[in-house]
């Protein structure tokens, strides 16, 4: 059987191209980043209504992405939604105790995300603390209800 260098080279290139393609898909298409996993700290926040918030939604401060929503569960003590946030490690110990978290919508039909705003309290939140001051998502039906009842009472 004739050993063909060109054929071996061809198959090798093909497989290398496949692996590089997978790396490209990972980095450019799915936005995988090399972030050290120990670089985040956890905070919790309770909301009366999370609306369309999903796990892996963004957490922003002043519009800049500073973390992700890692889990959403039902708090069986207070019957509201407990959202667990994972924020960048550099913010640990720098958010005041009266930081607020609000569920905002990107655009009209866009995905929902959490925006946090710091307050003025000298004491700060540590890993595992709960954000006390929260603003639930705007539910369209409740807004319409409010509008109609305002119109009727006028």
């Amino acid at each position, binding site marked *: *059987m004739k*050993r063909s260098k060109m*054929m*071996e080279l*061809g*198959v090798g290139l*093909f*497989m290398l*191209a*496949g692996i590089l*393609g*997978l790396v*490209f*898909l*990972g980095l*450019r*298409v*799915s*936005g*995988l980043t090399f972030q050290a996993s120990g670089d985040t700290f956890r905070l919790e926040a309770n909301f009366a209504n999370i609306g369309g918030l999903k*796990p*892996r939604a*963004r957490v922003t401060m002043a519009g800049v992405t500073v973390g992700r929503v890692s889990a959403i569960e039902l708090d069986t003590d207070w019957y509201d939604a407990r959202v667990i946030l994972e924020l960048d490690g550099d913010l640990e110990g720098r958010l005041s105790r009266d930081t607020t978290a609000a569920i905002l919508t990107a655009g009209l*039909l866009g995905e929902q995300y959490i925006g946090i705003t710091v307050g003025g309290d000298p004491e700060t939140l540590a890993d595992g603390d709960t954000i006390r001051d929260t603003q639930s998502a705007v539910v369209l039906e409740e807004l319409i209800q409010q509008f109609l009842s305002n119109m009727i009472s006028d």
Partner: protein
Amino acid sequence: MISRIAHLGRRGCELLEALGRAGIFMAQSAIGVPSREGWYLWLRQMHFVGVLSLAIVLVSGLFIGMVLALQGYTILVDFGAEQALGQMVALSLLRELAPVVAALLFAGRAGSALTAEIGLMKATEQLTSMEMIGVDPLRRVVAPRLWAGFVALPLLTIGFSVVGVYGGYLVGVEWLGVFEGSYWGNMQASVDFVGDIGNGMVKSLVFAVVVTWIAVFQGYDLVPTSEGISRATTRTVVYSSLAVLGLDFVLTAMMFGGLS
């Protein structure tokens, strides 16, 4: 009347027997320690099955990506959501189109070629001659082709996705004027590596096993005449395509059906 029922029963039994032969065939071929020469046989088949299929797979990927972007743009622009074009193209390709279309093209090109080659070897008695001189035809002829198919199709699927996303970029950003930052940014925010790319690769692996298995089995098991070869080649393409589409539905339901 009774003879019709007997005929149906006989056909059913024949189907079961064929399925059993296929299972035994797969077990005997795929499991085997590769030797030094076996490695080289596999390399030749990788070239034949993988490298030579690159042309059709990549060109199809490019055009499918371009058409996706074009059609997607015309629909999304009515909702003012044309900035979501990147995520639409990428998700459609990675989850569904790349594994399925690459498998169908592979079945048509490489699958039919494998069936014809092995079928001709059977018809010209090369396989029985190999057995007589003590060489196991399953290990020498079938196993390298099986493993080449298992490795080549996932690689071809990756190539298809990459070229398709790039084709979508060419049409969406360069021609239709979608903002480049939103094309890639929205895509990166919505494509999950394990959930989308990983699931697409799992599908592609399953299709690779099924398509290659059907192709080599039809070649090995056919009636050794020229008519038998042509019928086996047709059966390869038809059965592979139906199996790919059916399995695609099952896998999609398993992977993406239980929406969290």
